[in-house]
């Protein structure tokens, strides 16, 4: 793409960092206000926050202000350095995750061949932060919560990896940008009115992926690690103020980023079917798509994040043994069969 002005490399890097921050924090804020504050309240026949701003729309700023004012407590017997580093490790994992998500034909932070693989690898770093938080708090509830979280995240990472493989086989690439372009330029049995979003053939993979995401985010019904009736608040028990805020932001920001990735893998990402405007390839896409693309992405992201939150507010918690059995005995076999069938169909057609 040719821009009217050439931006020097340091400027591009600065813009990338800025864009990444916006792409992480904006969805997080929107999800918290729209779903956590408002949708949950309406589902429970109440209004939710109404005082700060019109319809309580400034509530987020009030909340952040409140958390920033609180005292920053580190337990006396805690391992101070590990305790302080843990929330940052979790947040860094989220920021690294957004780096490979493409938002438009030229609007991406970075793209390389191992995109999906990178995303799966980076998302597992947050487990480390949770373990660090649980151990360093010097609190048995924290430690139990951290161990539960690690066990759960390891168990659900496998079906997540396996469910994505179906998409990789179909697209023939692990590059997220290529996957988006494939979905929007291919056709279903010669009809190209909708492109070819992989949810059409990979519905099982999509289902497994979304369930694994729910578990990876430790959202109800998979919230054993922070089960408040048993473990106070799990690995977050000893955290207060700013550090708790970081955990909180990371949780919802990761929900947003995973929704973005799911929309890229299964729903066609930033693209609209190329046949609508007669685009032949990536190079012939009009430049306005770099503005429209992120909007399309955000829309799909909101729908998927809405589903994640909807499930969160609707279902009771799994027991620990049910949770493990569900991952190992249902999700992994199902996704293995899905991979096999996809491979057979790929070779046959």
């Amino acid at each position, binding site marked *: 793409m040719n821009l009217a002005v050439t931006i020097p490399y340091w400027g591009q890097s600065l813009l990338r960092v800025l864009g990444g921050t916006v792409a992480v924090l904006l969805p997080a804020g929107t999800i918290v206000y729209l779903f956590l504050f408002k949708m949950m309240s309406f589902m429970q026949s109440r209004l939710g926050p109404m005082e700060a701003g019109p319809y309580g729309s400034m509530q987020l700023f009030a909340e952040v202000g409140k958390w920033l004012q609180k005292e920053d407590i580190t337990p006396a017997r805690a*391992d101070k350095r590990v305790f302080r580093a843990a929330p940052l490790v979790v947040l860094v994992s989220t920021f690294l995750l957004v780096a490979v998500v493409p938002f438009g034909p030229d609007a991406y932070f970075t793209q390389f061949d191992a995109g999906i693989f990178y995303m799966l*690898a*980076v998302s597992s770093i947050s487990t480390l932060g949770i373990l660090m938080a649980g151990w360093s708090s*010097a609190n048995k509830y924290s430690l139990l919560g951290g161990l539960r979280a690690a066990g759960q995240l390891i168990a659900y990472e496998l079906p997540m990896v396996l469910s994505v493989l179906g998409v990789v086989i179909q697209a023939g690439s692990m590059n997220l940008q290529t996957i988006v372009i494939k979905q929007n330029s291919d056709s279903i049995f010669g009809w190209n009115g909708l492109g070819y979003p992989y949810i059409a053939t990979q519905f099982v993979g999509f289902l497994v992926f979304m369930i694994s995401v729910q578990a990876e985010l430790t959202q109800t019904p998979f919230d054993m690690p922070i089960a408040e009736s048993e473990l106070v608040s799990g690995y977050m028990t000893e955290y207060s103020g700013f550090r708790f805020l970081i955990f909180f932001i990371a949780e919802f920001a990761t929900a947003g980023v995973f929704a973005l990735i799911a929309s890229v893998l299964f729903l066609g990402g930033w693209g609209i079917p190329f046949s609508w405007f007669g685009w032949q390839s990536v190079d012939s896409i009009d430049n306005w798509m770099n503005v429209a693309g992120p909007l399309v992405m955000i829309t799909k992201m909101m729908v998927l994040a809405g589903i994640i939150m909807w499930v969160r507010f609707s279902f009771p918690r799994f027991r620990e043994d049910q949770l493990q059995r569900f991952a190992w005995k249902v999700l992994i076999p199902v996704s293995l069969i899905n991979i096999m069938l996809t491979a057979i169909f790929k070779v046959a057609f």
Partner: protein
Amino acid sequence: MMLASDIQVAQNIGFGIIAAVMVLAAIRVVTSKNVVHAALSLIAVMAGSAAQYLLLSAEFVAVTQVLVYIGAVMVLFLFGVMLTRAKLGKDVDLDNKGAWAYGAPVALLMLGVMVYVLTKGFKDTKISVSGKGSNVGQNSLLSDKIFSSYALPFWALSFVLLAAVIGAIVLARKD
């Protein structure tokens, strides 16, 4: 012939910084008095080597390093340690007395072997990282190699892993 313009200044500075961090973290792994601190330092070493792979534009290897070592091996290791014995604060019997006497020669031997193999194997070979004909960072090439010329070692390796998994099940099952 190596020209002055061939030297990639930024990459070299990056390499130096990351290598220094790796060496410091590696020393912390063996001198730390706390088993979890040692494990966390080991994670820093592994993250450093992943970063070095990235500098060599071997993204796939770098990502594998993060996924396998940081995301799986070290998480499982920490999980196991925290489940059984992970005291906060110092742990006196963590260090083996006189381990330096064995450790240092082994480390030197390893260094010698690796330096010899690398210089012998590559000599003056230059791998073009950018421009035409460069295939650095292409996954398809890697997979083509694994499933064609290296298919037999790949199968052999998977049999070894399968045997290990079965062995783990046999050992863990009580009945």
